[in-house]
């Protein structure tokens, strides 16, 4: 019984932190319509600011806390809203997602530049050493502070939203943005307030968490991902439900840690929040078919069969020349880059054509590498490297294909994050701490030959992707991204189409991962982390996830960046900074850089002059069934 009580109390404390951070996420999402992947990064920045004020500048805890939570964090939120969010308008999901992911990387980059990750930063708990015993359970004063703060926040947030005019306006903007403007309340200002409030809540959670964990920019940022589950339980819009979700999640986690001590189950303990997120998403009610939704236009550029053949041929010639002429010292990087390009290529049919954002492509790549390692380097190993991820992809897709947009993206994120903890960090899978040895497929130990093999695989897949776009399946995918309602009423079996492309894309990523593993000789959990996965998606979207050339350039640049960094001394993290800035520029060029260039060259051609009026205003999302509630 004592154990139970103790676990429950710990769970509630953790749950309070989840509830705090998730409610901030919900506030920003509802007021601006943008899911802020950088929410955790804002909390992380607040934690470091608090460290700077207290440990470094010697300020007492309370004023430092107030300054961080009430001034610095809201200011960061408001500035982000002003500079980034406001410009996004009605951008597509992959663009809004990429911009906030870019922001996340940028903030991590800034933190690592200011606060050297090599030196430890420690934050003291509030009222260190003080303890209270409640019903036989020992509580630290810090834990009490967490519970008290969360309760106070919940109550004052509710009061603010229901009793103050600004709070009512905030809910009104969520309900009907345009009507709110017509009454004289400013939706832009409310949106900015929402971001400031959300950032404040993120900051509060960050500071309260800071003393409980080691202060590391990446770890702290990703801790917040657990809070997504609570937000999803609140359907991303309902604050009271979000709070309940946070507490429930904390309790589940604590009880699981306490009671599930079997060897196998103990290994999945860290995954519990992600399982929670996945289940919450799969069970969440989805709007039925959306009608009257104007999807942003995708780049129409589809090279014909002859051009594709020509481009593939020239690419192979260049690859062959490079294989012969490139110095051996650069061979490894080049091969690595081409394998990454293949992984990015798997995003083109899924995200680029179909508009389905997957955040777990790197996970499939990892599964491919593991499959190759386990089956061996022969042709059957390569086959397994494609078939196993494809099968896993199908399994993941089956329950999630009902989901659309952000929900699908979050479900793949839950899967990827869970695999990160439970699979790639698992000793029985990865055999030893240095990683799992991966053989070179087909016994191609010669680096030049292996480079050409990877280029060949990319060429074949790229040719296949372009052929797919010209095929009926490609048209189905694009149509699905444009108008699901149109597809259904023409008799398209939507689920089957989505499942097929998801499995195919997972298989392609698996092959890329296997080839990557073969190049490295071994793979470890660090190779398939969530942050890297997000970075890759971001790079692809920035350069143009709708075109093959876009992802190729993205991969090669990623490979070239460390070289660049060698030449610029003094700046600790060029890559995240550059990548973050790139993403931020995306607000203007939403088809990616390659897409914009293609569009610019096309614009010169004659455009049809069609003078008739079109009457519908561009309504972004009008959920037909929402009228029922």
């Amino acid at each position, binding site marked *: 019984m004592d154990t139970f009580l103790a676990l429950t109390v710990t769970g509630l404390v953790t749950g309070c932190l989840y509830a705090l951070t998730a409610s901030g996420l919900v506030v920003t999402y509802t007021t601006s319509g943008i899911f802020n992947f950088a929410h955790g990064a804002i909390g992380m920045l607040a934690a470091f600011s608090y460290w700077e004020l207290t440990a470094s500048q010697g300020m007492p805890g309370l004023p430092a806390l107030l300054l961080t939570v009430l001034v610095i964090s809201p200011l960061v939120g408001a500035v982000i809203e002003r500079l980034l969010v406001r410009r996004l308008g009605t951008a597509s999901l992959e663009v809004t997602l990429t911009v906030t992911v870019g922001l996340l990387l940028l903030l991590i980059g800034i933190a690592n530049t200011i606060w050297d990750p090599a030196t430890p930063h420690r934050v003291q708990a509030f009222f260190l050493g003080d303890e209270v015993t409640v019903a036989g359970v020992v509580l630290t004063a810090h834990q009490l502070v967490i519970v008290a703060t969360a309760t106070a926040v919940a109550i004052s947030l509710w009061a603010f939203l229901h009793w103050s005019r600004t709070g009512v306006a905030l809910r009104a903007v969520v309900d009907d943005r345009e009507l709110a403007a017509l009454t004289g309340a400013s939706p832009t200002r409310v949106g900015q307030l929402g971001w400031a409030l959300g950032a404040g809540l993120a900051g509060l959670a960050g500071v309260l968490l800071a003393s409980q964990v080691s202060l590391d920019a990446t770890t702290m940022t990703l801790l917040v991902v657990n809070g997504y589950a609570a937000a999803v339980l609140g359907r991303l819009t309902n604050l009271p439900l979000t709070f309940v979700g946070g507490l429930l999640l904390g309790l589940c986690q604590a009880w699981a840690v306490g009671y599930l001590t079997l060897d196998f189950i103990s290994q999945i303990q860290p995954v519990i929040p992600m399982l929670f997120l996945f289940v919450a998403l799969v069970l969440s009610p989805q709007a*039925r*078919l959306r*009608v*009257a939704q*104007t*999807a942003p*236009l*995708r*780049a*129409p550029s589809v090279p014909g069969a002859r051009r594709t053949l020509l481009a593939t041929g020239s690419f192979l010639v260049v690859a062959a020349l490079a294989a012969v002429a490139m110095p051996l010292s650069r061979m490894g990087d080049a091969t690595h880059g081409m394998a990454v390009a293949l992984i990015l290529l798997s995003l083109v049919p899924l995200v680029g054509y179909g508009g389905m954002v997957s955040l777990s492509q790197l996970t499939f790549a990892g599964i491919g590498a593991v499959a190759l390692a386990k089956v061996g380097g022969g042709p059957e190993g390569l086959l397994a490297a494609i078939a196993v991820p494809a099968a896993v992809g199908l399994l993941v897709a089956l329950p999630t294909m009902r989901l659309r947009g952000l929900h699908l993206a979050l479900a793949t994120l839950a899967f990827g994050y869970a695999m990160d903890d439970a699979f790639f960090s698992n000793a029985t899978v990865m055999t030893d701490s240095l990683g799992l040895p991966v053989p070179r497929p087909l016994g191609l130990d010669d680096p030049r030959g292996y480079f050409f093999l990877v280029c060949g695989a990319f060429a074949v897949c790229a040719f296949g992707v372009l052929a797919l776009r010209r095929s*009926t399946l490609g*048209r*189905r995918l*694009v*149509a699905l*991204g*444009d*108008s699901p*309602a*149109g597809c*259904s*009423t*023409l*008799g*398209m*079996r*939507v689920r089957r189409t989505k499942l097929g492309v998801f499995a195919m894309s997972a298989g392609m990523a698996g092959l890329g991962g296997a080839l990557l593993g073969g190049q490295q000789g071994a793979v470890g959990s660090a190779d398939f982390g969530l942050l890297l996965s997000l970075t890759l998606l971001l790079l692809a979207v920035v350069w143009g996830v709708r075109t093959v050339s876009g992802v190729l350039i993205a991969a090669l640049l990623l490979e070239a960046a460390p070289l660049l960094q060698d030449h610029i001394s003094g700046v600790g993290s060029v890559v995240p900074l550059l990548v973050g800035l790139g993403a931020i520029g995306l607000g203007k060029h939403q088809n990616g850089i390659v897409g914009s260039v293609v569009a610019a060259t096309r614009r010169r051609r004659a*455009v*049809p002059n*069609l*003078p*008739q*009026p*079109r*009457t*519908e205003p561009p*309504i972004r999302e*009008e959920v*037909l*069934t929402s*009228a*029922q*509630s």
Partner: protein
Amino acid sequence: MLRVEDIGVRFGGVHALKGVSLTCPAGQVTGLIGPNGAGKTTLFNIVTGIQRPDAGSVHLDDRDITRDSTEQRARAGLARTFQRLEVFGSLTVRENVQLAAELHRGLRRRGRSPVELADDLLARVGLTAVADHQAGVLPTGSARLLELARALAISPTTLLLDEPGSGLDEAESHQLGDLLRSLAAEGTAVLLVEHDVQLVMRICAHIYVLDFGQLLCEGSPAEVQADVGVQQAYLGAESVAS
């Protein structure tokens, strides 16, 4: 042939549709008119399975399809166009129609190739000149014609058209009327929702008038025109402000 029986839907506290029954026989154009907000588009959504009714049933060619999915209904021969456009904006005009033809052909592999069929249909609705343009840049009128061609590509036995004439000028609207009549003559059951009363009166054999989610009256164009209730529904009651 389409038969709708006793359909009822509620949104919150409001009856969107109540006890609506209508028949749309093959070989003729049936009109469905009524003021904005009368429930016409809601009825279309229920017939195509995008929304579920709270009561009543939908029959296609004498088969109960009330529980079928949207996809199943389309495969059974039901096609529609949308008042708020649902063209595939990123595809070209030809690809829009071609895709529909391919989806239909997936069932039975015979007859002309989807591209040929697409070109024929585009010629029929008069969009040949813009076949290679991206569909998203078409003006409303043309986009509606494209939705019509796309719907025809799945060879429907029953065709639901939601305001196909809005955005067309007088000459184009006249051509549309001729096209719909010839479709009906080929054996298709056409159900037409349209605000251009002139067009409705010209081509419909039978007209239903919906008001407040209920059928107000039905009959031939002449009968409907003479009905006082219809005039009130359409023009508003006489002397409200006095």
